[in-house]
């Protein structure tokens, strides 16, 4: 009975906590952003008034003009170009767009305009998103051995640490390296390449992209006079893909850590376990001799019934 109670209590507790968290965020954001927005708004209206005063333009003409500007902006057409406009849909940009769609980042700086484009993107996303998640999961599974199991077992053997401490140590080191290599360094690179981005802007961009939030307020390679635009876009694409893989890896490592420490049983989450079918030793020659033992040593599933990680595809 207590388990039923706990199974009801824990999710409800989570939901309540989630709502409270959202409220907190809402209050903080609105407190921070609202004044800025107000000043911008008043600036704009005064500018409009100035414009109307100085010139022979009447309000309605201005309004129609602004409508067109907004419309074009919605299409991703920047209003400030004069003659030669690098299109949003050359091969590199379209590739970038497909990549953002398929990794669910979804900046939105360029979006399908035509009806056929929208219909196609529906189908494309429905197939491409699970496909990409599958690929990322597969890669991460492969990467787990050299990057997680190997070091943990090495820690245990050489330094003689307990599995729990070894996994914690390993996780901290991994986190540090990931932050350094995938956030700080790319942020520096972006802030130098993009003239208008500060370091914080670039860091914010890296974070928002690698979490697949993808707000779209900062998008690289969108400046009009960008040199080597195609190459830049492709390299950003590669960075996003690899970075996403690394984030998955960190998440998996954390999941294993939670397993070892028994947190998953407490939260009644699906506990992490090895994907055995990918390492079937009989037919194919899998070279990992060490990892089964290391894995058994470092992963003690707390429930005898093995459960699959629920979010293995989704996150």
């Amino acid at each position, binding site marked *: 009975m207590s388990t039923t109670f706990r199974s009801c209590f824990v999710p409800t507790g989570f939901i309540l906590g989630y709502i409270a968290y959202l409220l907190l965020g809402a209050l903080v954001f609105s407190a921070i952003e609202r004044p800025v927005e107000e000043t911008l708004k008043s600036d704009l209206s005064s500018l409009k008034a100035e414009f109307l005063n100085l010139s022979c333009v009447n309000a309605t003409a201005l309004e129609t003009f602004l409508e067109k500007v907004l419309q074009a902006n919605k299409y991703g057409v920047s209003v400030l170009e004069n003659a030669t406009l690098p299109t949003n849909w050359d091969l590199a940009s379209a590739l970038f767009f497909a990549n953002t769609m*398929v990794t669910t980042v979804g900046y939105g700086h360029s979006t399908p305009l035509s009806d056929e484009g929208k219909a196609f993107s529906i189908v494309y996303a429905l197939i491409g998103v699970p496909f990409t998640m599958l690929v990322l999961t597969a890669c991460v599974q492969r990467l787990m051995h050299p990057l997680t199991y190997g070091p943990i077992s090495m820690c245990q053997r050489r330094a003689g640490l307990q599995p729990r401490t070894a996994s914690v140590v390993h996780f901290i080191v991994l986190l540090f390296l990931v932050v350094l290599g995938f956030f700080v360094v790319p942020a520096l690179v972006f802030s130098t390449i993009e003239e208008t981005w500060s370091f914080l802007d670039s860091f914010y961009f890296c974070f928002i992209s690698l979490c697949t939030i993808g707000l779209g307020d900062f998008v690289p390679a969108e400046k009009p006079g960008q040199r080597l635009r195609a190459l830049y876009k492709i390299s950003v694409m590669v960075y996003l893909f690899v970075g996403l893989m690394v984030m998955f890896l960190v998440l998996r490592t954390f999941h294993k850590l939670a397993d070892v420490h028994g947190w998953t049983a407490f939260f009644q989450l699906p506990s992490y376990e090895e994907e055995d079918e990918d390492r079937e030793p009989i037919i194919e020659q899998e070279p990992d001799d060490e990892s089964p033992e290391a894995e058994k040593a470092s992963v003690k599933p707390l429930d005898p019934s093995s459960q699959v990680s*629920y979010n293995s595809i989704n996150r």
Partner: protein
Amino acid sequence: MRYTRLLTILAAVLLYLVLGALVFGWLESSREEWAHRELLTSRMAFLQNHSCVTPYSLREFTEKVVDAIEAGVDARSTSNYTSRWDPSNAFFFCGTIITTIGFGNISPKTKGGQLFCIFYALVGIPMFGILLAGVGDHLGTLLRRAVAKIETLFLRKGVKPTSVRVISAVFSILIGCLVFIAMPTMVFQEVESWSLLEAVYFVVITLTTVGFGDYVAENRRDGAPLYKPLVWLWIVFGLAYFASILTMIGNWLRVLSKKTRAEMEELRAHATDWTQNIQNMSMDFRIPVPLDLNDPFQLQRRRRRKRHRHHRHHRHHRHHRHPRLSVVGLAHGISLDADVVRENGHLILGWPACKYTPGSDIRSEALSQSRSRRRLDGAYEVRPGSRLTVGPASRSVSRLELKPPSRPGSRTISRSTSESGTGSVSGSETPSKSWSEYEYDSNSRNSEDLESGAEGTLRSLGSQKDVPVVVVDSCSPPHPSLLDFFGENLAYIDESSDALSDRIKPAGQNRQRKAKRRSMTRQIPHSYPIGLQKEISNELQPPSHPPTPPPPT
């Protein structure tokens, strides 16, 4: 997974991206050009009509406007000012951050806002992930309970279990689609005055968490105050539903890729067939064997062994003939090699349904009189393979097929069980049978079939050309197997989302659902000894991996 496979998958993803890029470029560039031209002409017209405006001041003005637009300000309405950062909109924004949808129609512009956003997301995204897992689990259970009732209804009417499973899967998808896609689409069409395509586009882009932001359900007119919270609730549940759908599609892709791998491995695995058979034979000495060396059936068995050998070559041909039904071909190519069975045993398990229908009795008889020896062997190969659930089954099969002295003995066994078998065969359709009973029935049934088949073969040695071949094909796996293939994966998805709630329920309730999924093999780690397997599988339901067969005997 091997590196070559990984590389091929990566190449496939790249190819997919390039294809998408080409299609999008082709579809969109013309429209973009048009928009650009429109803008230029209107600008020229404006400058011409209002000659007191210099291009320079106009450019300055538009720059400011664009900045304001990017900040999220609506440049049109200057009269009544509604902030986009009032608490309800900010709540919605936080929701999009945490679910990683990230529309981007509003985004923090200040340094403080961006910093806070980073830390907020760092904590919020994992939390939402946990919430999503829990919600998805309960949602899956709820959905399945609703569908289970429909399932029992169908089962009572005598529909085959596999098709029932597929029907139930289709039902659950449909129900989910209705609640999470169709209804919101209509609501959005109404409230946001979008077209149908735009509403569906918004729903899909949101629920896959891509979240472009070109369409956002914010309803800037003052609609019902409950609108925003309802949208947020829909996003949470819809995400859970979509996650399960995407997981299902991903598992199909994964299982498909594993099937191809297994198929290619199977050709290599034939070499180990005979060693495995001999091993199995050596385990059969428990059964008392009445010695009868002049047994006519022994001769027939020797003949069948030869045909067995021939048929292995035939199976290769079968493979190549049906490359598309690689799943099926694999099933056909079942050998007693446990490694191969491991890959695709779960598939075979769906076949018993084909045998258990009332028509299958007649079919088995007709099968025994089928035209060619090879086809007959094919049928034999098929059916023994279909019984290879776990060790005992395979042992029984090998006992029947390969060991000459034990054959009469097995016959007695089969006869003794046949009464119970026939009695319970009809009951095998009902969900209340347990795993082990089912297996036992399958064994008895299998032996029965083989007996009758063998006798039929003897009788019809001369008349093998009479019966139409189509009978074999009608009972052959293709259609049930494909159904089973999908059905099992669907069941796996159901199972994985059902696991936690099942764990809580008492084991008695589990029997019912478990028996319905009896053809699902449980994921049993290699480290577990065989003896424990049955217990574990009879235990509470862990959600298994994508259907994998049991480890070797």
